[in-house]
């Protein structure tokens, strides 16, 4: 069951594989069979040599290629990397490090709002109360539209469109606000679908059990279905949030938000080097890699728990 078409489909596919008894990619750490999979000491030696040769080859590329010196100068110039990280107002250079703080702020604010709005949308689509029909329709249209429209266009639309309307309170917000609104609009549509996949993955018998106790539809959803659904979708959700961290950079197109990527762009075009981009890339990696590892651990834990649980059902 793919969570959604384009980006996040792999996690649940992986679950299906696991359920079917196939080895799960990334399950090496989880079941403590790491050394076994490598096949003993000889194999370990081979893999070490192969790793060294591979990394050596890549390094050789950077050292001995005819243009290597130029590449090092433009991409990995320590002096300019430091300058880009700290910024230098006297030369019109922006600080990439300071810019990253904006990325983190946008990410954190947007994430909280997305988790909330997406859940509301997913739940609206789930409730079968006829009174809620128009809202359900709205939720369907909303997810269709905002999953279909590229984020950059949503950012442009909100950031350039809202001020052009000259509506008091709407047209006078900062680009920071417009950017977050656009991120929330776009990502909530994705995340709502992730939630919905999670809700649908909770077996109907759970609903029957809840309803048979006399719980209303809403209370069944609230106390029985959603807690299980959310647990299932945490890994794909985190996956989405790794994308979100990076996509905060797109808000810079509105102008006023000089986040890490935009600061790097300015520095790059001022000095004609790309070292500032390297700094931005490294900083983004510092943000996303911990989250990615955390996601992997959650998936591994989930898989092992599922297996342990499966073994004791009878």
């Amino acid at each position, binding site marked *: 069951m793919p969570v959604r078409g384009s980006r996040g489909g792999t996690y649940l596919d992986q679950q299906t594989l696991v359920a079917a008894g196939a080895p799960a990619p990334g399950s090496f750490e989880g079941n403590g069979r790491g050394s076994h999979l490598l096949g003993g000491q000889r194999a370990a030696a081979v893999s070490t040599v192969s790793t060294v040769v591979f990394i050596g080859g890549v390094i050789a590329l950077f050292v001995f290629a005819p243009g290597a010196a130029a590449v090092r100068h433009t991409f990995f110039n320590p002096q300019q990397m430091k300058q880009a990280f700290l910024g230098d107002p006297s030369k019109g250079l922006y600080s990439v490090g300071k810019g990253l703080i904006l990325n983190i702020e946008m990410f954190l604010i947007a994430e909280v709002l997305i988790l909330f709005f997406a859940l509301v949308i997913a739940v609206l689509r789930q409730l079968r109360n006829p009174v809620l029909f128009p809202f359900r329709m709205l939720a369907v249209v909303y997810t269709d539209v905002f999953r279909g429209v590229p984020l950059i266009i949503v950012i442009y639309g909100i950031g350039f469109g809202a001020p052009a309307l000259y509506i008091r309170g709407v047209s006078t917000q900062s680009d920071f606000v417009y950017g977050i609104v656009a991120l929330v609009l776009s990502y909530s549509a994705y995340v709502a679908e992730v939630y919905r996949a999670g809700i649908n993955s909770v077996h109907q018998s759970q609903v*029957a059990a809840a309803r048979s106790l006399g719980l209303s539809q809403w209370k069944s959803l609230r106390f*029985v279905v959603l807690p299980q659904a959310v647990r299932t979708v945490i890994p794909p959700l985190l996956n989405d949030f790794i994308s979100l961290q990076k996509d905060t950079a797109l808000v810079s197109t509105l102008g006023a938000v000089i986040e890490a990527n935009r600061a790097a762009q300015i520095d790059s075009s001022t000095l004609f080097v790309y070292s500032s981009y390297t700094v931005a890339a490294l900083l983004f990696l510092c943000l996303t890699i911990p989250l990615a590892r955390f996601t992997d651990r959650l998936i591994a834990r989930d898989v092992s728990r599922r297996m342990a649980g499966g073994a*004791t059902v009878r």
Partner: protein
Amino acid sequence: MSEADATGGFGGAARGDASLSGNPALVGQEAVRLEGVHKSFGVLEILRGIDLSVAPHEVICLIGASGSGKSTLLRCVNLLEPVNRGRILLWGQDVTAPGVDENAVRRHIGIVFQSFNLFPHMTVLRNITLGPIRVLGVPRDQAEEAGRALLVRFGLSDKRDDYPDRLSGGQQQRVAIVRALAMRPGIMLLDEVTSALDPELVSEVLGVIRELADAGMTMLIATHEMGFARDIADRVCFLDEGVILEQGPPRQVFTAPVNSRTQQFLRRIVDAGRL
């Protein structure tokens, strides 16, 4: 339990158990009454006119082949499936009438499923107290107090803080029964509750049901355990293709069935060594 008990021993006071039996105001009426109940899924007609009446404290076992409509009948009583035709009355009240609050009806009916359907994200105690707290509005400490008492009574007190996936199937099913009992239902519906269990785990669950019967619980039990049905039931109903073909005291149905289909069914069961 002898037939004499089943037919004559409705003495509520003798068998009743204050901690388990339901709403005292309902005692004395017919507990459940089905009148010409029809239920179809699409073109498939599962129930084709069921008439059945269950007295308070009566234990009725529904037997019949798979697909004969036993489970659907139970789900209809609990309003998990709406009926297409006919009426269902609980303690004299038509619960299939339009405008009936199904949640209110379900409070008085406990149902236990073949596949346990415990809530995997909750501990055993939370599974049991969810209904009382969220539906009946019992304060949490009182609900947990009552829940703990029930677990002690059914030998599950050491599992109180475990999650369901740490329990054996038999334990899970017992918890599921306790979860239904925690709502203090007036009637219990048991849907093939031992079918998903390994043979060695069946008896512990049957023991619990026996205890309920001894305590005077009104029960409608769909089962394949014929020996058990013969022991526990006040009345046995044989369902075939959506109608009750034959019913009566277990001794009569099991030893001298009148209907040829019943005879056939029981012969297959005996041949399979299950009676």
